[in-house]
């Protein structure tokens, strides 16, 4: 391919793949069966020029490929407040990726929009939360591909055979014992992003096996755990013994080998991690906006939101970020209209920390997402307050921060 037998775009992609594989010490490339591309988010003109070069030189993906968020909400024009030139460059980038044959899914939760590789399948995914979900919850195999390597892998149907593609790198080297934490805490939706934020900060890119968690954890909680762990650290794979597919028991998760580290997680450690997710002054009750949906909100999460809101109306802007696939479902089942009346502002194809959507005046943003809490302050200037989905709804209804602290104390 690098010799140009499939055209100049594939040749360039193959050169980038080969050079990256050599740098990583990969002895060979592995054939992949699907890709999820994160490189379609505008960070500057260079990314647009790269995508347009691939498209203009006849590039076409060789495997089913979904797209992560772009920088524009194509369904809600005007939602993103870019200057016209930036908006045009961001739009051109999104168009170029569609021309390459990618599915215009525009979501960071492709696994909740029909893209679910099977256990043991080798794939090439970008976007850190999608990668950790794909590896941990689905048991498919991908490394954390940097932007641009994802589309190169999709064009060539190959990825460097290193890291999490290989059995020996998927075993847990760290064991995290959560048995000292209360069962009530483990039933809270707000527990899992905090657990993830703690895990990523503690172990970086290592693979952990967590023990002592409930056997039935909602998929959205696993999604939230992974997203937080991949933003506070560089976690690409975790195992939950008795829950995730490669960890029916601890020995399977560790490959039968003694762990390099064992950590007993305490409530105090977790509370410290929770407090780090809030950058607003402790005890503040000011709130200017709420954002949920990082990763993109699922149908189940919208149903929970719908129940919590009831017939209430929000006093401050409440942004729910989701993919167009889920938006279509809630439009059909009536939630879209109901939640819209309550004051929910829907953001599709993109999200509030990657594009200028939040009110320009700034202030305090409340969120139930460990990933939003991690990135909102540097990317938007908003201070953050972290809370459960119920806390977020109660606060947006009251117009001031309202958090149920009982289970955290």
């Amino acid at each position, binding site marked *: 391919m690098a010799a140009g037998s499939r055209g100049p775009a594939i040749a360039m992609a193959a050169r980038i793949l080969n050079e990256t594989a050599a740098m990583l010490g990969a002895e060979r490339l592995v054939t992949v069966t699907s890709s999820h591309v994160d490189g379609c988010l505008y*960070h500057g003109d260079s990314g647009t*020029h790269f995508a347009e070069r691939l498209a203009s030189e006849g590039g076409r993906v060789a495997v089913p490929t979904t797209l992560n968020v772009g920088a524009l909400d194509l369904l809600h024009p005007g939602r993103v407040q870019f200057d016209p030139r930036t908006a045009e460059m961001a739009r051109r980038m999104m168009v170029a990726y569609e021309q390459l044959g990618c599915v215009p899914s525009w979501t960071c939760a492709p696994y909740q929009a029909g893209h679910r590789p099977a256990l043991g399948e080798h794939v090439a995914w970008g976007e850190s939360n999608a990668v950790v979900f794909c590896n941990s919850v689905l048991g498919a195999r991908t490394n*954390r591909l940097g932007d641009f390597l*994802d589309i190169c892998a999709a064009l060539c149907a190959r990825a460097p055979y290193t890291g999490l593609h290989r059995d020996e790198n998927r075993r847990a080297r760290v064991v995290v014992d959560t048995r000292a934490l209360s069962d009530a805490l483990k039933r809270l939706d707000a527990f899992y992003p905090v657990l993830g934020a703690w895990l990523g900060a503690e172990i970086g890119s290592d693979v952990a096996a967590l023990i002592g968690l409930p056997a039935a954890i909602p998929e959205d909680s696993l999604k939230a755990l992974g997203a937080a762990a991949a933003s506070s650290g560089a976690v690409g794979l975790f195992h939950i013994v008795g829950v995730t597919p490669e960890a029916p028991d601890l020995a399977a998760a560790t490959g039968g080998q003694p762990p390099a580290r064992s950590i007993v997680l305490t409530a105090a450690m977790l509370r410290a991690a929770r407090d780090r997710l809030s950058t607003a002054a402790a005890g503040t009750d000011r709130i200017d906006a709420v954002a949920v949906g990082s990763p993109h909100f699922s149908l189940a999460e919208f149903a929970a939101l719908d129940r919590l809101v009831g017939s209430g109306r929000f006093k401050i802007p409440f942004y729910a970020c989701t993919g167009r696939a889920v938006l279509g479902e809630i439009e059909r089942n009536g939630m879209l209209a109901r939640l819209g009346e309550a004051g929910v502002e829907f953001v599709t194809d993109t999200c509030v920390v990657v594009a200028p959507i939040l009110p320009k005046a700034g202030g305090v943003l409340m969120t139930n997402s460990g990933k939003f809490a991690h990135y909102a302050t540097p990317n938007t200037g908003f201070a953050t307050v972290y809370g459960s989905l119920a806390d977020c709804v109660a606060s947006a209804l009251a117009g001031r921060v309202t958090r149920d602290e009982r289970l955290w104390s």
Partner: protein
Amino acid sequence: MVTGQVLIDGTAEGPLLRLVEPISFWGGVDPATGRLTDPRHPQHGVAIAGTVLVLAATRGSSSSSAIMLELLARGIAPAALVLGEPDAILALGIIVGREMGYPAIPVLALPPAAQALLPEGMLRIAKGGGISAA
């Protein structure tokens, strides 16, 4: 002189800038200015352009390669990167940049213990991974 593992070969010269805490380039470096923008980072506000940037560890987003590419396109990239361990994400931005005709910069891997012994001040990177005081 110490020798790092060559990830991307090349020569460079610039002042040493040691990041005291890990950073994600996406969310942590402004691609328009080349400054550290994460307010939680102790070196918030510092410019990385032209420096021999020494990082013990990287973290976070896979979009960091896109930030690296944009820094190269704008001519505000570091002069060289010295990473604590081989990292495909930042180096990838440089590999793509070379394909796009942007100037490349050397990237070396050097374990944190050896990074700690690098002298402050101007450093010179030679082909083959040698690092010495300039």
